Structure formats: C-alpha cells, structure tokens
C-alpha cells in the first residue's frame, strides 16, 4: 500500500510521526495516561478532538490517537491513519454493563459488536458481523488472563446515542429502542459503548488489525451520567492490559518477521 505523504486534513500529522501500532481511545484526556506508559512519549498533533502522542514500546514506535466520541469521528481517524500506513489499532475505552456478567472494574474484551449505529453501514451491510481481528483479540484475552483482573469477552452493543441507555423514555422512538435493547440483552450482550462496531467493521474492510479493551464503569442497571461515576479509579486496568497486549503483538510480529 502506498503511504500518503500529505498530512491528512483532520489529524494533520505526517507519517514519520506515527507508529504502525496505534491505541485509539475515545477520550482526549486518556491519551496522556496511555502515552505515559510508553518510552519517550511526545506530542505530535492536536487538532479538534484528535490528540496524537508517539513514543516507543520495546523499541517499536507506538502512537496514541483520541477518536472523540462515536463512529463518525472514529471513522475519520481510522481512514487517515490507514493512509499513513498504520496496520494495528486497539481501542482502550470505557463501557457500561448490560448484564450481571459484567461488573464495575471488569476488563472487557469484546468478541463481537452489535451495530446499533450508522457509520459501519457506509462500509458493509447490516448482516455482516462486526468482529475484531481474531489473532489480536486472542492475544488480548491472554493478556487479560495474565493480568489477574476480572475480565469478560462478551458481545458489546455499539450505540450512536449515549442517552439511549441513560434516558430512553424521553425519546419519541422509545418503544422501539426498548424492544431492540431488550433483544440485545437477551441475545447475551454484556456491555455497551460507542465505537467498537465501527472500529471492527472498518478494520475488516481496510485490512487493519483491530481489537478493543475497555473498563466496565457500571454494574448492571446502574447507569449514570454523573461525572463522579466516571471510571477514573479503574481505567488503569484497561490501560495496563492494553499495553501488555500490544507488547505481545509486537513480539509475535517480530518472531514471524512481519505482520500477516
């Protein structure tokens, strides 16, 4: 694939400044927390919600780019990183429980995502499953097991509207939302966030290896939009597993002499 020389219009960074292994958290503030686990981290870009830092991990260049909330801005980040030659993208995020199987503080590594969003449909039809790269997913499951943190690999619901979950009754389409959400939970979905299905789908189409590592911020049916409930005390778990998994992926790639 030809690597783009021109700086992409949203990220405004050049390919020399970005690693081919990239963490894509949603939150701008989480970028520095993740980058602080890298060697020699430096800021290489900051435009709109896209904050970019680059450092190294075991000698390999690794970057962190915030996607902002939701599929539209995430798809822009993935397209522009892909044009710059990035082949591996791992979300480090937060999610809420949709099942008694997921509890506050659990590390969540979803095996697939419900596409309750619009962006992935601009890539593949609804019936195409949104799944992470199997090898990257399996590596993260191993990293989670090694970490000793409680973890879960259930299906995640990717929704476009945060307040669908928090206050569905205020929406005119409430009965429909309730039917859908109820079906997802009965189908075994264990958690929900706002980017995974977009990331997995675009990964499948562009040939980017993807996975997602999230921290569960709530217990089942204890949703909250109170800032005091933001999972600040727990997010280091997702970051730790995120970094460890990336080390394992880089080591596997070195052993094989390149990516597949």
């Amino acid at each position, binding site marked *: 694939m030809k690597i783009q020389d021109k700086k992409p219009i949203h990220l405004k960074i050049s390919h020399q400044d970005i690693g081919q292994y990239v963490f894509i958290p949603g939150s701008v503030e989480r970028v520095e927390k993740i980058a602080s686990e890298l060697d020699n981290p430096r800021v290489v870009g900051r435009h709109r919600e896209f904050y970019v830092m680059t450092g190294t991990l075991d000698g390999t260049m690794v970057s962190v780019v915030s996607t902002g909330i939701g599929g539209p801005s995430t798809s822009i980040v993935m397209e522009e990183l892909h044009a710059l030659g990035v082949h591996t993208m791992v979300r480090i995020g937060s999610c809420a429980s949709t099942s008694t199987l997921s509890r506050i503080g659990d590390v969540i590594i979803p*095996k*697939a*995502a*419900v*596409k*309750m969003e619009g962006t992935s449909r601009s*890539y*593949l*039809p*609804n*019936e*195409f*499953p*949104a*799944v992470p790269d*199997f090898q990257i997913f399996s590596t993260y*499951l191993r990293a989670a097991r090694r970490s000793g943190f409680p973890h879960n*690999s259930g*299906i995640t619901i990717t929704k476009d509207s945060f307040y669908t979950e928090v206050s569905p009754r205020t929406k005119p389409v409430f009965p429909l939302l309730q039917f*859908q959400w109820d*079906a*997802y939970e*009965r*189908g*075994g*979905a264990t958690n929900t966030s706002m980017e995974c*299905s977009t990331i997995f*789908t675009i990964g*499948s*189409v562009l*040939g980017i290896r993807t996975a997602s590592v999230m921290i569960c911020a709530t217990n089942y049916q204890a949703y909250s939009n109170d800032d005091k409930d933001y999972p600040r005390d727990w997010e280091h778990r997702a970051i730790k597993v995120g970094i460890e998994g990336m080390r394992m992926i880089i080591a596997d790639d070195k052993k094989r002499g390149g990516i597949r």
Partner: protein
Amino acid sequence: MMKMMHVGLLDGDIAPLVLLPGSPERAAVIATHLQDVEEKAYNREYRTFTGEFAGKPLSVCSTGIGGPSMAIAVEELVQLGATRLVRVGTCLSTNPLVTRGSLVIPQAAVRMEGVAEQYLPPEFPAVADMELLTYLQEAASSSPYEHHIGTCITRSSYYTPFDGFSRPVGNWLKETWNSYLQGGALCSDMDTAILFIVSQSLGVASASALVCTNNHDTSLYELEDDPEDCEHRVVDIALEAVRRIVNG
C-alpha cells in the same frame, strides 16, 4: 413423555454435547467413531445417534440443509438438554487463501438468510462461543491440515454465487456479495449464522467447523457435495475437539 415433533427424540436420548452435520449420511459416518452407539431416531432429515467418545456421552444429529431446519433442530435439542453444539459441515471458498481441503472455523457469520431475524435483529452479530472455538482451533492446529479462522457467509440460496446472479434480484445480490468479499469473508455455507444466533438466543454455546470443498474460482459443474477425500478432515478435528472438551 413428550416426543419432539421433528427430531423424533425423547428425553434422555441425547448427550449435552451434540455434533451437528448437515447430512444424515455424515451423521452415520461420525457415529462409526463412537462406542456403545445407538441410533435414536431418523425422522425427516434428522438422524440422531448417541454413544460415547473419549469415555463421555456424545450425540450426533443431522440438521438438513439451511436455516429453517437448523433452527428446529437447535430448539428441540435444547429442550432435551443440549448445552453445547458443534456444526461439522462443508463450505465453499470465497477467498483465494482458502483452498479445497482446508478447514475453516468461523469466528462469526454474515446473516444472508431469513431465520435469524426472527430471533435477533440483523445488527446483532452471529458469533461463535469462544471456548468451543478455541478447542476447535487447538484441534485443527494439532492436525496436519491447513486451517483458517474468520468470517463465513451464511446464504439461504445454494446457487446464489453460481447462477451468474441471473435471478431477478441478481444485480442487488451481486453487489451485496461483493461487499462481503471486500469485508474479508473466507467462505460460505448455509447454516452457521443460524446455529450461532439461535444458540445465543437460547443461552447455549455453539461453534462450527467446516471443510472447504472447492477453490474460490470453481464453476458450478466442478463442485462436489460430499468429497470423499476431505470430508474426514472436519470429522477428525471435530472429534479431537470433543476429546479436549470432555477432558476439560
């Protein structure tokens, strides 16, 4: 005691772990590997054997071709106490990476069919149980056969890719099919997505092991249904996975 209307089985006739070939003939082939095996029923396309494998109870039940008969089999087997279901089938390659005789273990499946929507909406992913998938992966890795893990297209019309998209909805089918290929789909079959979605809906675990019976550019006239030279490969890895499952 109630006898299930379609599979023709009674309570106590099956083990919690069931292998699901599509064809009744393959059910009989798999049954030859079981000890103390007994044919429990053969009604319509559902042929069921129960016996022991690796010292533990195991059943085999054919599902027929396609989602409608698969959904009935899963519903009735779960009512009789099945908790783990593994499809043992064939598939057609849709990707140059997957050649005749290689194995495909679907991680997830495209829902190009009509049954699963009566269980979960189309945006819900049809995905394998990761524990069962891991056992199949280990079994395949320990076999001499090439294997792939990825996405399988489950279509409900066998001739869809082979009729030149000449049917009235052909133009739409062609573009849809191309989008699946660009999404990286490895193969297609007629049952996996339904097995996954019905199992997920009923709260039981399922996975699928497939052997590819053609190369991706094979014409209709070169296809074979039950290829004698490679059918045994998928049976071998399914039974090896069962050995690992029952030994924990």
